[in-house]
């Protein structure tokens, strides 16, 4: 076995952790910073919480850029980078969900290196190694983007997502403050946590999984399973546990990567404009079903991570089957409780999209990490199952 595991992130977690923002800015020697966010976060009053934290240290936010769009298009990133270059700041404080954090990760590399065409630096492990300092403050309990060295941007001209993977994209600091996820809408709690669940499971069965990522992914799964139902009912502590679980799953998948569930979700998501986490929720079961035999050993492991399950008899395939059965029931209950759509047709899918989704999924970089080769037949079968 050969693997690389890298996690240089400082994680500050718990009630009141946002009040550490000033000291972290000082530690990073940041003389000037901008807050990068989106309009929804500003409207929800979450920036005010950061302002309060800075206020106590006699600091103010010099500039708030709230123009990050959902699944940020390249044009939006170029514009933000240009504005950051103009004001010559040395740190970005990103407050938001996956789109904001992904945008911030790329922008801090673009601004530092004056890159005007990010599509030219797409790839794996090829970004310039210098960037602005980055503090990531997640406001959803699912993406784990604050912990990963990957990000995705939308190439609006070609209607496709471009992936970037490099250790330099891992932020310097992640601040996980429960106050930021207390008021999240139920649907967002559920869909983002299901995304985190997919991160944990896919990292665990990835061909690049390793003992460190396995320990993290199993723990994340266990925490999500235990806390998601209560988080949907509004339990604040459960929501915070999901925030932490998403972070743990993020560290796991940043090192082990995700597989064919994400390939299909990226493809269907970009063609039908489905929010990422909801697209993932549609393909978890189909993706696991087709890998049942190939990943039975790792899926059997995950059965033991489910809280309260003590049925460990049988061979790996039996245990893997049992795991999938429990996942199916769990997802059904969560989707019902949160009002999440259950089928791809709920997002406007019809047969005209079938070939396009398959073609895009086969080209997706995540497919290389799955336990089986993603063929058109398998991708097609996954789409059909997601329609049920």
């Amino acid at each position, binding site marked *: 076995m050969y693997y690389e595991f890298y996690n240089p992130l400082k994680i500050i977690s718990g009630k009141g952790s946002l009040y550490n923002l000033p000291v972290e800015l000082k530690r990073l020697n940041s003389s000037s910073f901008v807050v990068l966010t989106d309009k929804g976060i500003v409207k929800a009053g979450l920036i005010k919480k950061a302002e309060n934290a800075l206020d106590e240290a006699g600091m103010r936010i010099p500039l708030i850029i709230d123009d990050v769009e959902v699944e940020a298009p390249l044009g939006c990133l170029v514009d933000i980078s240009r504005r950051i270059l103009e004001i010559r700041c040395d740190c970005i404080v990103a407050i938001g969900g996956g789109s904001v954090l992904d945008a911030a990760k790329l922008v801090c590399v673009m601004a530092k290196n004056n890159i005007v065409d990010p599509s030219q630096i797409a*790839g*794996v492990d*090829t970004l310039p190694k210098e960037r602005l300092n980055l503090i990531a403050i997640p406001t959803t309990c699912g993406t784990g983007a604050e912990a990963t060295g990957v990000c995705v941007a939308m190439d609006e001209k070609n209607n496709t997502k471009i992936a970037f993977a490099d250790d330099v994209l891992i932020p310097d600091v992640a601040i996980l403050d429960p106050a930021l996820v207390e008021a999240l809408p139920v649907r967002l709690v559920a869909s983002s946590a299901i995304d985190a669940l997919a991160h944990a499971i896919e990292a665990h069965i990835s061909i690049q999984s390793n003992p460190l990522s396995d320990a993290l992914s199993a723990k994340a799964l266990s925490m999500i399973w235990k806390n998601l139902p209560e988080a949907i009912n509004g339990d604040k502590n459960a929501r915070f546990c999901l925030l932490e679980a998403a972070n743990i799953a993020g560290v796991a998948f940043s090192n082990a990567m995700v597989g064919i569930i994400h390939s299909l979700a990226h493809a269907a998501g970009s063609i039908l404009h489905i929010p990422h986490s909801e697209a993932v929720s549609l393909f978890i079961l189909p993706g696991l079903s087709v890998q049942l*035999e190939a990943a039975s050993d790792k899926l059997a492991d995950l059965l033991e991570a489910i809280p309260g399950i003590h049925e460990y008899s049988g061979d790996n395939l039996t245990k893997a089957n049992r795991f999938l*059965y429990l996942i199916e029931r769990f997802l059904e209950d969560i989707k019902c409780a949160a009002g999440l759509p259950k089928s791809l047709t709920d997002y406007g899918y019809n047969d005209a999209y079938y070939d396009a989704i398959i073609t895009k999924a086969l080209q997706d970089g995540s497919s290389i990490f799955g336990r089986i080769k993603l063929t058109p037949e398998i991708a097609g079968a996954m789409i059909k199952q997601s329609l049920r």
Partner: protein
Amino acid sequence: MYAIKRKLLSVLFVFFETSLKLLYKRDKTTKDILSRLPDGFVFSISVDFSNLSITIQKGENGLRRLRTDHPDLSINFKNIHWALLCFAGVIPQHTAFAGKMVRIKGNIDSALIVTEAIYRLQEIIFPPPVARKLTRKSYKKPIESMEQIKGW
């Protein structure tokens, strides 16, 4: 040891380049795979700390060697050890990609196409047991297993 590895790898590089050019002309599957890349597309495979590299351009009439520092896709092995294992058919391409043994500069979907072409080449030049070991495990009935789950 390094000198032997480097020599061996340089021979494998020449063999790889020649075979791929030939296959593009003679093998329909290889041509179909690489035709998904645009004409004029340039990809290079290189190895850190060895000065070894090959750069190939896909044209209308076939593949040709090219000298450029700016390929559309660059696959760069982090050391000569991984490159040798990969080109000698000891470790599969997808393991090298997934295991971060290579750096990829360019679109990942183009890298997947090039990888697929290399698999096709290995399928032809290596003895079947070796080639089988390199291709990703294809389980007999993934789709049927899905149906089985549906019924519980």
